[in-house]
C-alpha cells in the first residue's frame, strides 16, 4: 500500500491547519466561506498575519526571506488555506513580480522590493495586456523612451486587475521597434503614484469593479526601476509563465466552493424535496467532485515528478485548462442548484448597492459571471492549447 503524502508532510498539514484555525480572523473566514470577495483590507490584514509567522512570501526560498517550502508543502499550504477560508494572497507581488526580481533583479532591487512584497506594504498589479494586445502580447505598444536617468512611458494598459488597489505596477513596455517584436520589450516597475498615471474602472458583467484601464501620459520612471537589461522584458515574462504555472491548481478554492454549494443547496427545495436529493443534481455534483480529485492529484503528480527532477506531461497548460473549467463549472452548478434564488443581486434605489453582504445567495450569480474570466486570463485556454500543441506536435 502506498500513501499520497509522507508523514512529515502530514505533520506540516496539521501545522498549517492549526495556524489557520487560530490566526485567521473570524470575520474574514466568515466572508470567504460565504462567497464574498476579499477586500484590499482583508488581504492586507491576512498578509500581515502570514508575515508575522514568516510565511509572508510563503512561495519563496529562504535566501529571499521565505520559509523555503518544498513544492508539495506549498501545495498543501494553499489547499489548507483556501479550504479554511483564507483570502488568496495578492499574486501579482508574491507570485509574479517577486520571482522575476529574484531571477533578474540587482541586489538593490531585491533588498528594496522583496521585503515590502512579503509584508504587503506594496500592493502590486500587473501591466501586461493592452487594448490591442491580448493573446498576442508581444505586439504591445506602450512606449518607454529613454531620457537621461528616466524612461518616459506613454500608452495604455487594459484589463488590469486591482489597479485601483495597487501601489505598484510591473509593466512590459516597448523600448524598441526594430528587430523581432519580442526583443524590443523591457520590464519596468512603476510606482502608481507617479504623475501621469490614470486608473479608470472597467465594470465587468458581474457588476463589480475588479479590472481597470491604466493610462500613462509621459510618466517618468527611473531607469533603476528596470528589471534586467533593456530588451530583456520578454525573457522575464516567459520565465514568470514557466515558473509560476506549475502551481495553478486552485483546487483548494474549488473544494471550498463545493462545500458551499452543498450548504447552499441544503436550504433549497425542488419538487417537494431537498435539491441535493435530486438524482440529477447528485450526479452533476459527483462528476464535479471526481474531476476535482483527478485534477488535484494531477497537480500533486506533477509536483512529485518535479521533485525527482523529471517532467510529466505539460504541467502548466494542462492545470490551467483543467482548473479554469472546474472553477466555472462549480459556480455554474451553484447557480443552477439554487435556481431562481440566484436572481436577486441588487437593491433598488437610492444606493443601487450590491446585496452580497446581506444575502449569500446574491453572490452566486455574480460569481458565475465573474468566473467566465478563468478561461481567458493568464493566457487564454486557446493559447494554452497552442503552447501544448507546439510541445507535442512541433
Amino acid at each position, binding site marked *: *500500500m*502506498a*500513501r*499520497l*503524502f*509522507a*508523514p512529515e508532510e502530514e505533520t506540516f498539514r496539521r501545522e498549517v491547519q492549526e495556524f489557520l484555525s487560530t490566526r485567521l480572523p473570524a470575520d474574514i473566514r466568515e466572508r470567504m466561506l460565504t462567497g464574498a470577495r476579499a477586500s484590499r483590507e482583508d488581504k492586507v490584514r491576512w498578509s500581515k498575519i502570514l508575515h508575522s509567522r514568516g510565511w509572508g512570501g510563503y512561495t519563496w526560498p529562504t535566501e529571499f526571506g521565505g520559509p523555503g517550502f518544498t513544492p508539495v508543502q506549498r501545495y498543501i499550504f494553499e489547499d489548507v488555506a483556501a479550504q479554511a477560508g483564507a483570502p488568496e494572497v495578492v499574486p501579482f507581488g508574491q507570485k509574479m513580480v517577486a520571482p522575476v526580481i529574484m531571477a533578474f533583479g540587482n541586489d538593490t532591487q531585491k533588498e528594496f522590493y522583496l521585503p515590502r512584497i512579503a509584508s504587503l506594504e506594496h500592493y502590486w498589479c500587473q501591466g501586461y495586456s493592452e487594448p490591442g494586445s491580448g493573446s498576442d502580447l508581444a505586439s504591445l505598444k506602450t512606449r518607454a523612451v529613454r531620457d537621461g536617468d528616466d524612461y518616459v512611458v506613454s500608452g495604455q494598459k487594459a484589463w488590469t486587475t486591482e489597479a485601483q488597489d495597487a501601489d505598484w505596477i510591473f509593466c512590459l513596455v516597448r523600448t524598441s521597434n526594430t528587430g523581432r517584436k519580442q526583443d524590443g520589450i523591457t520590464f519596468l516597475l512603476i510606482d502608481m503614484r507617479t504623475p501621469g498615471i490614470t486608473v479608470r474602472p472597467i465594470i465587468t458583467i458581474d457588476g463589480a469593479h475588479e479590472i481597470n484601464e491604466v493610462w500613462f501620459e509621459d510618466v517618468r520612471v527611473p531607469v533603476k526601476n528596470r528589471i534586467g537589461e533593456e530588451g530583456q522584458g520578454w525573457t522575464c515574462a516567459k520565465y514568470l509563465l514557466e515558473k509560476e504555472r506549475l502551481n495553478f491548481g486552485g483546487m483548494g478554492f474549488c*473544494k471550498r466552493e*463545493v*462545500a458551499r454549494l*452543498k450548504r447552499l443547496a441544503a436550504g433549497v427545495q425542488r419538487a417537494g424535496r431537498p435539491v*441535493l*436529493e435530486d*438524482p440529477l443534481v*447528485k*450526479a452533476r*455534483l*459527483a*462528476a464535479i*467532485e*471526481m*474531476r*476535482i*480529485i*483527478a*485534477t*488535484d*492529484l*494531477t497537480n*500533486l*503528480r506533477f509536483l*512529485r*515528478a518535479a*521533485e*525527482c527532477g*523529471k517532467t*510529466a*506531461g*505539460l504541467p502548466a*497548460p*494542462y492545470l490551467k*485548462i*483543467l482548473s479554469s473549467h472546474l472553477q466555472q463549472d462549480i459556480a455554474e452548478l451553484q447557480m443552477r442548484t439554487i435556481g431562481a434564488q440566484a436572481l436577486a443581486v441588487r437593491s433598488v434605489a437610492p444606493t443601487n448597492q450590491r446585496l452580497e453582504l446581506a444575502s449569500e445567495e446574491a453572490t452566486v450569480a455574480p460569481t458565475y459571471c465573474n468566473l467566465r474570466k478563468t478561461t481567458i486570463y493568464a493566457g487564454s485556454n*486557446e493559447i494554452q*492549447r*497552442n503552447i*501544448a*500543441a507546439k510541445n*507535442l*506536435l*512541433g
Partner: protein
Amino acid sequence: MQDTTRSDLVFVSREEYDLLSDMVGRAVERSTRKASTGRSVWEQLVDAGALSAALSEAEGGFGDARAVSVIAEMLGYHGIVSPFIPSSAVVTRALSRVPDPSGSIEIRQRIAGGEIVATLPIIPHLSAISATPVESSNTIVPACSLSGRAQLVPFGAEAGIILIEATLMPPGQTSEPAVFLIDKDDVKVENSVIGIDGFPYADVVLDGVAAAPARLLCRGDGARDLMEWCRDAYLTTLCADALGAMSRLVAITGDYLKVRHQFGAPLASYQALRHRFVDMDIAVTQTRTVAEMAAGVLDDNDADTRRNAVTTAHYITVRAAFHVSQEAVQLHGAIGMAEETPISGYFKRLLAISLLFGDEDSALNRYTAGAACDGLDAGRPAPRSGCCG
C-alpha cells in the same frame, strides 16, 4: 538515491517498476517475432516473470498493485489479448488475501509459472450461482453443491480454475455470500464468444458441482469484502490497461497528424486539429493520475479510501476512453474507419473496457451511493460527515 519512505508515495516512481515495464515491453516485442522464438506472448510473459510479479514479496513477487498496473499498462499499450488481469492481477492476488485452506499457495505458483490460467465471473448481475451444503456435512465449513450460471466470464473457456461467488443457502438459516475455488473440469462452458475487443468470454455453467470444504475460501462479510476487492482490483487494472491503450492512440494519432497532408500542409499545422489533439493528451494525463492513485491505494485497509479512489478512476478513465478513442478515429478521417488501421484494435479495447463494469454513470451511482461523496481527499481517509446523499 531515494529513501524507501518516499518511494512508498503514490506518484513517486520506483526504478524497479520502470525496469519491469521495460522487461514486459521487450517480452511483447519478442513475441511479435514468434517465428524465430517459437514462443507465444503468454509464454514470453511467463519467461519474463510478468505473472510472478503479482505474487507477494515472500513468494517472489512485488506484493504491490502498482507493479501489476505497470504490466497491465504495457499490455494495453501493445494491444495484447491475454488473461493477465483476471488470472494474475485479480485471482492470484485474491488468493493471497484469504487463509490458506486449499493449497492456494501452490495454485498461485502454478498460475505464476504459466501452467494454469485462472478467472472469475466479474459482473455481479450476470452471475447467479447457489451453493447448498451437502447433508451431514460439517456445518462450520460445509461441503457444498453448486449450481447456476455465470455469463460472459473472461477467458471462461481457457481457464483451469475459477473463483466463484455463490449464494450459500444453509437449510433453515439466512443465506450469505460465499467464495469457492472450482476446477475447470467440474463445470460446463457454453456460449464461447470473442468480444469486440478480441478477448474471449464464455458462460460457465455449474450443475451440482461438488465443492469440498477446503474449496470454500470465505463466507459472509469475508466473502463480500473479498469480492468487492476483486471487482476493485479488476477495475484498477483495467484502468491501467486503458491508460496504455489511450497512450498508444495518442502516439499513433500524433504521428499521423504529422505525415498526413491536406491542402498542401500537414494536418498537424491546423489549429482546430492541434487543439483537439491536446485535449486527447489532457484526458490521458488525467487517466494516468487516477490509474496510479487507484493502484496505490487498492490494498489500503480502509475500504472507503479504496472505493473512493477506484470509483474516481473508473469515472475519469471511462470518460477519457470514449473521448480519446472517438477523437483518434475522427482525427484520422476516413482511414480511421478501416479495420486495418493500427488504431482499430485500441478503439475497440477501450470500448470493451468502458462497458465491462458499466459506463461512467455506474461510477457516478456508486460514488453518490457511498461515503465516497464526501471524499474530496481521495486516497486520504475522509471524514464521513456531510454526505451529499
